[in-house]
């Protein structure tokens, strides 16, 4: 067997080992590579940035634990943004069918709220999971509290301050420098999807289409999306049709949002490994093609 044939037939485990090292080394020795912003991510950031304080925002954590490493960084960044803007944060999940998004949302919103000094039931609430996919979205549009009589922790929703529009400025009395103060936004009661000023659907499957078809088209809620990189290309038609305002795609999108929020989190740090591994894969593809064509050429010459 010639050297080219050997290169072509290299043991797959050698490739696996290099992949592992290509990911691990930049984590041990960070490269701190710069992050550039894209219009798609700005589309979500600007919408949240322009909301008046106290506006209700819905965040659908529609992903499984399998996608947590990719999507948690952006969920955290969005939550940080919402709390910084003193928005009323409501989280929910309609996907996956085992409802694991409910626990993910609960953990993340609790942790970020603790950092921001926000109170459960007053500044934020996690509604948890409901079965029925589109039926839940329609249910939220028609009769919010009938669909979610209780939150994830079993508290009766009707009694929560956050939904009844009596939300105050939390513990930070000073308003943000350029935030548009609006008493109306805080006084707004949440009885339907229509009452939310904005929503971000963070998904690893097609739940965004359910939110668009029923949430946006039927009840007019403005939607921004955050999704796994695998799902991102599928959201561009909806972006161009103005059914969504922006796309935060994968770890790259998360790194951009972190940059906008002026911190370097798991998204930005992950981009170092991402860069190395992408270059490695391109080299692999190039090498694979090169060896293949050399062998093909040899065959033709012999033939």
């Amino acid at each position: 067997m010639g050297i080219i044939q050997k290169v072509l037939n290299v043991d797959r485990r050698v490739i696996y080992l290099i992949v592992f090292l290509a990911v691990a080394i930049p984590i041990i020795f960070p490269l701190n590579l710069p992050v550039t912003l894209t219009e798609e991510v700005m589309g979500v950031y600007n919408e949240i940035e322009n909301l008046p304080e106290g506006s209700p925002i819905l965040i659908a954590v529609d992903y499984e634990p399998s996608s947590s490493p990719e999507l948690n960084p952006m969920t955290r960044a969005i939550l940080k943004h919402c709390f910084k803007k003193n928005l009323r944060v409501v989280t929910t999940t309609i996907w996956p069918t085992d409802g694991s998004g409910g626990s993910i949302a609960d953990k993340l919103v609790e942790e970020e709220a603790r950092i921001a000094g926000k109170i459960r039931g007053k500044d934020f609430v996690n509604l948890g999971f409901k079965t029925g996919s589109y039926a839940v979205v329609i249910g939220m549009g028609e009769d919010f509290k009938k669909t979610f009589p209780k939150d994830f922790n079993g508290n009766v929703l009707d009694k929560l301050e956050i939904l009844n529009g009596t939300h105050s400025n939390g513990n930070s009395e000073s308003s943000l420098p350029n935030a548009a103060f609006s008493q109306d936004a805080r006084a707004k009661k949440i009885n339907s999807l229509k009452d939310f000023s904005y929503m971000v659907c963070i998904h690893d499957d097609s739940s965004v289409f359910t939110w668009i078809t029923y949430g946006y088209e039927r009840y007019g809620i403005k939607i921004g999306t955050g999704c796994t990189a695998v799902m991102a290309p599928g959201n561009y038609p909806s972006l161009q049709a103005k059914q969504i305002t922006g796309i935060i795609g994968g770890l790259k999108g998360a790194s951009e949002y972190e940059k906008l929020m002026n911190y370097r989190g798991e998204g930005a740090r992950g981009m170092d490994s991402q860069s190395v591994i992408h270059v490695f894969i391109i080299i692999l593809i190039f090498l694979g093609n090169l060896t293949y064509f050399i062998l093909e050429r040899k065959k033709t010459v012999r033939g």
Partner: protein
Amino acid sequence: MPLQQLLGIWIAAGLTLAIYSFLYKDNPAYKFAEHIYVGITAGYALCTAWYNVIEPNLISELLKANWHNPFTALIMTWTVIAPALLGILMFSRFFSKASWVSRIPIAFVIGAGAGISVPNTVQAYLIKHTSATFAPLIPKEAIAWSNIMDFINPLIVVLGVISVLIYFFFSIEQKNGLKTVSWIGIIFLMIFFGASFGYTVMGRVSLVIGRVRFLITDWFPLITNLLGLGS
């Protein structure tokens, strides 16, 4: 570090390595972890279904009614009792002679689902996306020569949508001009698949990054501490 967190990190690291051992070859450690995963996910789903749906939307509603007066209570709660009964009928699937009974709740869900989806899909996708494809062809304001791509891009989109749809249209034989348009459709699809592949790589790699980061930043310090190498 609290004991439960310490224990948690060791267990999570052990299970992570057990799954990764599959990369070498299939082995009992991988199978062990795999079955834990399936079992725990099923257990999680059952508890969530109870706490998030059955308890708040069904049991609580039933308990709210005054059952001292059963007739009134039934009238008050029939909207939750009826779907619960339909739901229970689904279990007839496990009994071959009575499995046909499950068709009734299935018919309810499928019928309502189909009826709800038709007009909404027409509105959200057929109308909206067809209009979004052609509307940019007529720009609202004059396009400067420097932004010539603002004029070309909508044309590319129209060409792409039409050619791919023609490629999907198998009802007539594709020859001559139609074959050429269909080939253009293939090119558009290849560009999309290529871009999707690039993003799929990105997505899957981020999962590895998350797990390797956990092993390096959360678990390795515990090992070094255990071996007395920690600072």
